[in-house]
C-alpha cells in the first residue's frame, strides 16, 4: 500500500459501529484507489454492507472517511449522502417504480436530466431504446443494468454495489458479472462491490478485501489471497482447506503429510488445499480412505489419518478409490501458521 494519498478515492480509518450488542464494524480500515474495482468479501453478517452504507452516508459511524481527499465523516463532520458524489447500486436495485427507465436514469442529473447523457449511459449498459419502459416491464438483468446506469449517470467519484448479483439466477450471474466489469472499465469508474460469494469476488475484481467480524483481515489480489492466505480462517473461507496440528522445530514443521519449511517455533497449524494433496497405493500406507465424491472431471477423496484427522484430496478421475483402501498421502504445498492460543 504505497500509493500516494491523492490517488486514493476512498480512505476509511478506524470505523466502529455497533447495533446494540452486535458489532457491525470494528476498527475497519479501507483504501480504494482510483480506477480500481475492489470487492469487499465476507460471510453474511460480517459488516460489509454496513461499511458500504457508512461510506455512502446512509449511516453514521465512529471514525473517519475521506472521499477524494475530502473529509465526509469524522467526529464533527457528516456530509449527507446527496453531497458525497457516491453512486449506489442496491441489492434490490431500488428502481423508482413510478418513473420510466429514462426518468430513473436522469433522476440524478441536473433539472431532471440531459437526454443526451441519459441516452449515452443507457447505451453504455446496452439498454438503448428501453428508455420509455417502466421498471416492472424489465427482466431482472435489465433492471440491474438500469440501476447501474442510474448510479453512473451523474459521474460519481465512486460506485458502490451491494450484492449486485444476488437477485439474478445462476446462468445470468456470470454474464452480468463479465458485462459489469467491462462497463466499469470502459467508463474508468472506481467501484466497490460487496459480496459473500468467493468465486464472484475472485473472478470479478482487481483487489479483494476479506472481512471478518467487522474488520478487514486481508487485502490482496485474488491470486495472492488464494495462494497466500493471511490466516487459516481466510484459507478456509476462500476455497477448501484442511488443517493439521504440528510443532515448529529448527526451521521445519513435520506432519504426516510431509515436512514443511517454517521459521515458527512451537505449536503451529499446517493448512493444505485438497488440490495439493496426493494419494498413492502400495508403498507404506499412512491413511485410510473414508469416503469419496465423484464429480466426473475430478474426485474428492477424504482420508482419515491415524488419530482421526481428516484430509481431503482433489485428484483426477483415475484411479478410483473406495472407502477402506489403505493409501499413502502427502502434500506438495502447505502454509504454516502459528497455532491460536
Amino acid at each position, binding site marked *: 500500500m504505497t500509493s500516494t494519498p491523492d490517488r486514493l478515492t476512498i480512505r476509511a480509518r478506524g470505523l466502529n459501529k455497533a447495533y446494540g450488542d452486535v458489532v457491525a464494524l470494528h476498527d475497519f480500515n479501507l483504501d480504494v484507489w482510483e480506477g480500481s474495482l475492489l470487492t469487499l468479501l465476507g460471510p453474511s453478517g460480517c459488516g460489509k454492507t454496513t461499511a458500504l452504507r457508512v461510506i455512502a452516508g446512509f449511516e453514521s459511524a465512529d471514525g473517519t472517511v475521506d472521499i477524494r481527499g475530502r473529509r465526509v465523516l469524522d467526529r464533527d463532520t457528516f456530509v449527507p449522502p446527496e453531497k458525497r458524489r457516491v453512486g449506489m447500486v442496491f441489492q434490490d436495485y*431500488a428502481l423508482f417504480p413510478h418513473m420510466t427507465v429514462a426518468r430513473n436514469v436522469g433522476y440524478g442529473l441536473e433539472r431532471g436530466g440531459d437526454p443526451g447523457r441519459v441516452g449515452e449511459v443507457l447505451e453504455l449498459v446496452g439498454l438503448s431504446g428501453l428508455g420509455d419502459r417502466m421498471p416492472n416491464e424489465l427482466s431482472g438483468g435489465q433492471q440491474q443494468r438500469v440501476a447501474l446506469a442510474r448510479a453512473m449517470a*451523474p459521474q460519481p467519484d465512486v460506485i458502490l454495489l451491494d450484492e449486485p448479483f444476488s437477485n439474478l439466477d445462476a446462468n445470468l450471474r456470470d454474464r452480468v458479472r463479465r458485462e459489469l466489469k467491462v462497463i466499469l472499465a470502459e467508463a474508468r469508474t472506481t467501484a466497490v462491490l460487496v459480496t459473500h460469494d468467493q468465486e464472484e469476488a475472485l473472478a470479478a475484481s482487481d483487489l479483494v478485501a476479506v472481512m471478518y467480524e467487522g474488520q478487514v483481515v486481508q487485502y490482496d489480489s485474488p491470486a495472492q489471497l488464494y495462494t497466500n492466505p493471511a490466516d487459516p480462517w481466510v484459507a478456509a473461507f476462500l476455497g477448501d482447506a484442511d488443517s493439521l496440528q504440528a510443532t515448529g522445530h529448527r526451521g521445519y514443521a513435520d506432519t504426516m503429510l510431509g515436512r514443511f519449511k517454517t521459521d515458527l517455533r512451537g505449536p503451529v497449524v499446517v493448512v493444505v488445499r485438497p488440490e495439493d494433496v496426493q494419494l498413492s497405493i502400495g508403498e507404506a500406507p499412512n491413511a485410510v480412505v473414508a469416503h469419496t465424491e465423484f464429480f466426473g472431471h475430478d474426485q474428492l477423496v477424504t482420508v482419515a489419518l491415524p488419530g482421526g484427522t481428516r484430509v481431503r484430496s482433489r485428484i483426477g478421475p483415475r484411479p478410483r478409490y473406495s472407502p477402506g483402501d489403505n493409501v499413502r498421502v502427502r502434500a506438495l504445498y502447505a502454509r504454516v501458521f502459528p497455532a491460536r492460543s
Partner: protein
Amino acid sequence: MGVIAPPPDRTRASSTRPTRSLGWWIAASVVLIPALVPPISLAIQVLLSGTGLIFPTSRLIELLAATLGLAVAVTITSLSIGTITAWLTTRTDLRGRNTWMVLAALPLVIPSYMAALTVIGATGNNGLLAAIGLTIPTPYGFWGAWLALSLFLAPLAHLTIIPGLRAIDPAIEDAGVGLGASRWRVFWTITLPQLRPSLVSAALMIGLYTLSDFGAVSLLRYDTFTRAIYTLYAGQIDRRPAATLSLILMALALTVLTIEWSTRRRAGYRSSSTKRGRRLVVLRGPGRFVSIGFLGSLTAISLLLPVSVLIYWLVRGLRLGNELGSLWDEVGRTLGIALAAAAVTVVAAFPLAMVTTWKRRRMSTTYESVAWGAYSLPHITVGVAVIAFVLRSAPIVYQTAALLLLVYMGMFLAQAMSPIQDSLRRASPDLEDASRGLGRGQLTTLRRITLPITTPGLLAAATLVFISVMKELPATLLLRPNGFETLAIRIWSATGEAFYTRASAASLALLAVSIVPLLVMTRRDLNT
C-alpha cells in the same frame, strides 16, 4: 367502522442517521396530542373533582351487567354468522360465492343508528312488516339492540375470518383427509383450531364495538353505559357522573384492546403458503339448499330489509304529505366536515406512519399503540372528556368546527395511519436512500419519491376517514357547533322523535353519498 389492526412487527430498515429524522418524530408527537388528551384529562378531572356518583353501586353493577351481557350475546351471534358466511364463501363450490362474499360484507356500511331505525321501522303497527300482514311489536330493549348490532357486526367477523381461512395451508387439511378423517372431523380438529387467532380477534373487536355503541342502544332504549352517559350528561348540571362512567367505559375498552393485542402476539400459527389450489367442499342436495337459504335470508334481513324500510317510510311519508324539509344543508355540512377531516387526518397521519415504519424503535410501537388506543375509545366518552377539558382550559373553542375536526383527527388517526404504513412498507426503504445517493435532498426525496409511491395508501386513508366521519354520531352530537346538523344527527334525532320519514330520507341520502367509497373499500378489504 374498520378493522382494528395490532401494532405490527414488520418494519422497514432505517435510513440515514437518526438525528436527521428528528423533525418527523416531533411532527408525529404533535399529532398524537389530540389522541392523548381525552383519556388523560378525563382521568385527572375525575381524580380532582371526585366521582360525583349519585346512584348506588348496585345500579353501576346493573349497568355493567347489561353492557357486558349485550356484548357477549352480540359477539356470539355475530361470530357464528360470520364464521358460516366466511366458510361458505371461501371453502365451498357454492355458485356465485364471490358475490355472496361481498353481499355478506356490505351490511358493515350501515351505521348502528340506521340499523335501529330499520328494526323500529320494520316492526310495530305502522311498520313495513305490518303492511305485509306480519305485525310484530317493536322489540325495544335488549332484544332489539341485540338484533340490530348482531346483524350489522357479523360482517366484521366475516371480514376477519376470510383471511384466516385463506391463510391455512390446504396441504394440512388434505393431510387430515388422507389420514382417514371425515370432512366434518377435519373442520373441528384442524380448520377450527387454526382459525382460533382470527376468531378470538374478531370476537374481541365485535365486543369492543358493542361496548362503544351509542346509536342502536339509545334508539332502542336499552340501558348500557353509553346510553347512561348521554342521559346523565344531557339531563344534569353536575357533569361528574357522566365523566366517571366515561372513564370506566374507556378503561373497559382499553382492556379489551389490550387482550386483543396480547392474543395476536401469542397467535403463532404460521403455515408455509403454497400457491397450490385448494380443493373446495362440494355442496350437494340439502347442503346446497340450506346454504343458499341461509345466505339468502341473511342478505334479505341485513341488506334488503333496511333499504326496503327506508324506501317504504319515505314513500309513505310523501304520500301522506309529511313535511320533509330540505336536506341539502345537511348533505353539504356532512360532506364538508368529512372532507376536511379526511384531509387533516391524512396529513397528520403521514409523519406517524413514517416514524412507525422505521426500524429498531421501541418508541414507534408506543406511538402506534397510542393511536390505536384512541381509535378504540367509545366516541361518547371522548365527547364527554373533550367538553370537560375545553370548558376548563379553552372555553373559546367549545362548539367550534375546528374543535370537532381536531377530535375527529385524534379518533381516526390510526385508521388513516394503517393504509399509509402498508404502502410505505411495500416500498423498499432503499428507494429513499437511492434518491439521496443521487444527490437529492430530503425534501425533494419526499416530494418526488416517497409521496408518489404512497399515493394509493394516502387515498385509502382519506376514504376510510371520510366514511367514518360521515357516519359518526356520538362525538358529533356532543361537540358540534349550535345548529350544526349533519345527516347522522338528523337520522338519530328524527328517529328518536318518531319522524321516520325524515329519518329515512336522511338515511338514503347518507347511503347515497357514501356508497361509492364504501364499495371501493369493501372490495379492497376482501382482496387483501
